[in-house]
């Protein structure tokens, strides 16, 4: 078993603090993400898991502490640089509702490629490939409203993978799914990530989902706890 403590981390968070008004959502969180590894961020609801993920992805900036990606401090980048980083290097899967309802599934998956300047035909061809890899190419021409929750999540995973990102951020990706569909999404996500040596930050409170990770970090009351058993 790998504990992921060897080698240089691709990404790390150190003593990250973040508060929303009176709520101290993060109160000193640390996390190292190693290349090609899956880290599970666990903890009770409201403990600050999503906030940690948002800080690491540069969606929000921490009040204090540092988040570095490949040695670069995210807080030194401006908004458009961070947007570009998210667009080009990261992929995202959320619990639900992330697909644009008007676009067909294949168009949804092609969207990041189109934004990166790829033409429509090649982008959609690549998107179709990705959908096939996630075993949902049969719903390519349907709109998100017309597919099942599990299919929709797999389309979302396809979208997060289509740009071959270095890091995939998944916030409760199976939260709205039943066990079977949840397992399926996790298996495909982790397989695809391993295939491209992408790292995954997997926020979940379900141990069975966390079991797909290489190592775990527990957040409680905004603090990460050292993985005692791993030591």
């Amino acid at each position: 078993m790998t504990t992921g403590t060897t080698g240089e981390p691709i990404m790390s968070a150190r003593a990250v603090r973040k508060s929303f008004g009176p709520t101290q959502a993060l109160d000193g969180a640390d996390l190292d993400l190693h290349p090609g590894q899956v880290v599970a961020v666990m903890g009770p609801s409201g403990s600050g898991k999503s906030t940690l993920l948002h800080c690491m992805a540069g969606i929000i900036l921490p009040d204090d502490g540092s988040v570095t990606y490949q040695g670069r401090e995210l807080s030194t980048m401006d908004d458009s640089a961070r947007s570009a980083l998210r667009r080009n290097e990261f992929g995202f899967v959320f619990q639900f509702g992330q697909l644009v309802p008007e676009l067909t599934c294949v168009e949804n998956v092609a969207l990041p490629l189109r934004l990166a300047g790829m033409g429509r035909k090649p982008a959609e061809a690549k998107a179709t490939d990705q959908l096939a890899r996630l075993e949902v190419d049969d719903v390519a021409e349907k709109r998100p409203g017309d597919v099942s929750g599990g299919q929709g999540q797999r389309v979302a995973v396809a979208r997060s993978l289509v740009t071959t990102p270095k890091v995939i951020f998944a916030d409760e990706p199976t939260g709205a799914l039943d066990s079977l569909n949840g397992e399926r999404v996790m298996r495909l996500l982790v397989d695809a990530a391993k295939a491209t040596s992408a790292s995954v930050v997997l926020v979940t409170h379900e141990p069975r989902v966390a079991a797909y990770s290489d190592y775990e970090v527990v957040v409680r009351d905004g603090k990460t706890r050292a993985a005692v058993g791993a030591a």
Partner: protein
Amino acid sequence: MSKRTSRRTSLGQWGRDLGLGIRLAVGGSRISGTSIVRLIMGTVGIGLAVAILFGAASVGNMLSAHEQRNAANIPSWQPRPGVDPLLMSTASSTIGDERISVSWIHPSGPNAPLPPGVERLPGKGEMVVSPRLAEMRAAADGEALRQRFPQREIGQIDKYQMTDAGDLLAYVGVDATIGAESSAMPVYGFGRPEMSGNETAILLTLLSIVGGIVLLVPVLIFVATSTRIAGAERDRRLSAMRLVGADARQVRRITAGESLVSSVAGLALGTGLFLVLRPLLDNVRLFDTTILARDLQPSPLLALITVVGVPLLAIGTALFGMRRVVIEPLSVVRKSKPVKRRLAWRLVVVGLGVASLLSAPVFDEGEEMWTFAVGVGATLLLIGVPALLPWLVERGAARVSGGRPSVQLAIRRLQVDSGTPARVVAGVAVVLAGGIALQTGLAAAEADDKYRPARAAQETISGQVTGAVADQVVADARAVPGVTDVRAGRYLSVKGAGEKSGTSVYVMDCAGIAQRYQTDQCVDGDAFTVVPPPGSRNYGRDLRPGEQVRVVKYARDKEEQIATWTWPQPKSTLAQPPGSRSGYFGPVATPGAVRGIPLSEVSATLEIAHDKRPGVISALQAATAKYEWRASFYDPSSYVSKDERMYTTLRNALLAGAVFTLSLAGLSLLVLALEQVRERRRAIAALFASGVPRGVLSRSLVWQLAVPMALGVVVAIATGIGLAWLFLRLVDEPVAVDWPGVGVLSGAAVILVLLSALAALPALRSATRLDALRTE
């Protein structure tokens, strides 16, 4: 029996469901911000509609009151026993570019009639003026007017008895010598039954129809749009209601109850608005007509139709908006494959409109059927715009399949639901089409000389003087600073032996003849004959050389011979110079040729040349005030015809209406944009989180509004110009499209799209914040 009870319970159920809807709309502690916005917008929309409809329902009363007052002001020359006639000579001239009517009056006895609105007859040196004239005379810049009318003002005419409260009117008292003046008529009383239906009324009716549609359609669309605000939230609430056992019909009744609230509130607001705005409209001049608040009485029938119809319409709209929505206990199902919009009936509406307009010439212009055909045609054509647009937008969006991501996002959105944006845009398009039609009509009217008085003689002021004072007036006029030349001419009425109508001889000195007919042969004592240019007809007749004629003048319809005269051998014939407009054809004589005729008994027309400094005419009028009715002047170049002034007013009204309706339409667009952002909060937040630049999202919002708007503008331009063409065909005018005007209106539409997108940006911005991603 059982049938009756079931009917009764179902009626009771109706009432309960409506009541529940009402409680949901107003009551409840959990009423959300968006529900309140929806309620307010619905109320405001319906309020505006009601106020406009009340106003429109008052137009008939306004026109008939106007007509009655007009009839009451017509003088009667029919002798009446026991009445001493009022000798009255009325002359029209101008103040600035407005027409003023001055009546010089002298009572021939103690029992002379009083003109309507006048309390006491002015004596010599006194006058009674209309309120607006009094105001202008009293104003700081009224010095010229005070000199022109030095008489003492002994009272004002009651504005409620004037044909139009805004008219400039003066009754000036003069001495008995006016009785000798040919234009002075003995008036025995005022008031005469008036024939109805003059041209202005027809045009007004047409314009009211077009204007009414142009104003109302956006309001109705606004009302319909406002029911879409917080639509998703309402749908969820209704869904919850289905879960606890309400059936589909009950849900519809509850919806109806909800819209009933804003209808009733809107009705109250509209009535309030109408009552509050009415006094503000008092004395407002529109279409050369002054509005009197007390004439703004909605016809009872139309008011009733409004009061009953508007709430029904609102409920109908709400239910119609839900026809494609199935509220299920667990979710709201929007029938995903909506029926394809059909083209046929939309084309039928437009086709009927065109046919109706084309058929109008079958009837006589101004006839009731003509008006009807034109009105119905214009209405159908304008209604065709909102009917056609949803179809066009749907087909248009279906054709486009890609483009940049921002375009793709917008187009796909339109493919899913094009109805609402198309309807909102249709409101703008109707305004545009109506505006373009009117503007094109105006451009054509302007291009036509008929509506623009001759401006060739722009350098001269015209005057009319009685013969006795003509020489003095000419002398006084020459002394006015700025006047460079004064020429007098006289028309002699002459009759051959036994001739009934006779003809006229124009008397003018050689300088004048030389200038007017570009000849250098004239010597005092000469006579000429002016031949009409080809295509024109001489309504008088030429005199035979040596023909003996009687020179006559007319006083109070009585003919009086002042001399006999022999028409000499004319020296030559003269031709009207090309391009000249003031046409006189026939015999012309120099003063030397009419010696022996007492010219002091024949009134003279003056042509006064000046150096165009401002205020020359005012100075002239002031300098000749002492001649009272004996001298009057007007400046043809400053004189604006009633038609032209009406078109100016129309253009302003059009602009105001367009601004009003466009801003309503803009508000609807904004509501739409906000609603679309709200509905997709999560997707937007997720897109932004995964690095999609805000610019792409903002641009897609703009496209979403711009695509239907572009189609709307195209349809509007086509409809507008088509409508104008059909209109102008009816009145035999060439079509002259006012492209800059069209450009301005279309530009306004584009700006509207940008503005509403801009106003929706903060909402988009807030959606890209992460709250939407939180999963609680």
